[in-house]
């Protein structure tokens, strides 16, 4: 199974390396979202600092939606998903291979979004470890969720609109817990940051469990 996951993940990462969609299209879009929020809040440093954690996760979620859509669009073209299935890959291996590649790409997006926050919103980080832990759990959760719903909508004509409609509500717990953890790490809240990070981890594990159960039905007849 690990070898099969690696085959799919490596293929997706090679495609990303050749096309650079994450770096050239998704990262600029995410940074643009942060800039637009800055305009919307009239460049008020107090407001932007207070909402920085939430803005980070909203921007990364947009990036995850775009990444998930792209990840499964390339499988719908020319029957590539069929070719993977004819290679004897287990549905779970396809799902986890794509989720792993998506997680790595989302983490890259997260790094750029965090850098954008530091530069554009002039926030200061009080707990880097909490930022990293919450960031890893949250982006991985977005990736797993994105892979699940990407698999569900692959090949559908309405996938462009259906994917965000399905993904964003289900990702709401990650938005909530991630924002709370980041608020603590950025010093704008005195909440229990690690408790929220633990909740992020629980949400991630839940998504993974659902993925294991749903991979077969989702990708067997996609």
């Amino acid at each position: 199974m690990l070898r099969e996951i690696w085959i799919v993940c490596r293929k997706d990462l090679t495609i990303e390396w050749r096309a650079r969609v994450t770096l050239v299209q998704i990262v600029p879009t995410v940074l643009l979202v942060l800039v637009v929020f800055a305009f919307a809040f009239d460049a008020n440093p107090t407001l932007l600092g207070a909402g920085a954690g939430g803005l980070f996760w909203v921007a990364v979620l947009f990036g995850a939606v775009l990444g998930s859509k792209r990840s499964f669009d390339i499988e719908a073209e020319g029957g590539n998903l069929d070719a993977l299935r004819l290679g004897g890959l287990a549905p779970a291996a396809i799902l986890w291979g794509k989720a792993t590649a998506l997680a790595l790409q989302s983490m890259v997006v997260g790094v750029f979004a965090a850098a954008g926050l530091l530069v554009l919103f002039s926030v200061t980080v009080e707990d880097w470890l909490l930022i990293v832990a919450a960031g890893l759990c949250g982006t991985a959760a977005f990736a797993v969720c994105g892979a699940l719903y990407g698999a569900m909508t692959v090949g559908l004509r309405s996938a462009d609109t259906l994917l965000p409609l399905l993904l964003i509500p289900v990702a709401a717990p990650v938005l909530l817990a991630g924002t709370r953890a980041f608020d603590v790490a950025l010093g704008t809240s005195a909440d229990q940051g690690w408790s929220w990070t633990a909740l992020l981890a629980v949400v991630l594990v839940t998504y993974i469990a659902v993925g294991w159960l749903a991979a077969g039905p989702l990708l067997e007849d996609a």
Partner: protein
Amino acid sequence: MALLDRFPALAGVDLSVQAGEMVCLRGPNGAGKSTLLRACAGLVPVRGARAEVLGFDLRADRRSVRRHVGLLGHRAPLYGDLRVDDQVRHCAELHSAAPAEVTAAVERFGIGGRLGAVAIRRLSEGQQRRVALACLTIARPRLWLLDEPHAGLDSSNRDALDDLLADAVTAGATVMFATHEVGRAGAAARQVLLAGGRIEEGSPTPPTIGPNDAA
């Protein structure tokens, strides 16, 4: 009966193909040729009928047959952003092919050298078809299923494809292909005519090259 969503795309197909046989499917657009090929590959659910491919019961377990089947549809299953050598390496990993087999396939279809560093989306349709055929060769399927395999190829590559299929049959593989080109259908030992999801009675069977003749 084979279902596309809930639509019974095939109903009334009674077809038995021997191992090592080359069969050509013919028929008008929408006759069910592509669906029959996909059903044989285990990619379309079969209901209310007996369907066995390479000894695998498609109603009970469609997944097991897939590893032994190679399918080339209307469009080449290639990733446009990958380079040719990336795509070939991916196919080799997917099918655990030996380096010698990969090299042979690359040389046979002339997709090595400078072409290897070109992105798939920059290739012509015929070149993409050659890459797809190389990947199919690397997969070493026991059952070759090809939908309009000659489309987009120039005459020399069409001949090369016919040679490839003849070689596959000689090696013991079974080949089923759908085509509208009467001239190319002659390479098959048997022709089957489909219409409206059914096999027409009295399908033409011209005197052609059979597996034993090819051997």
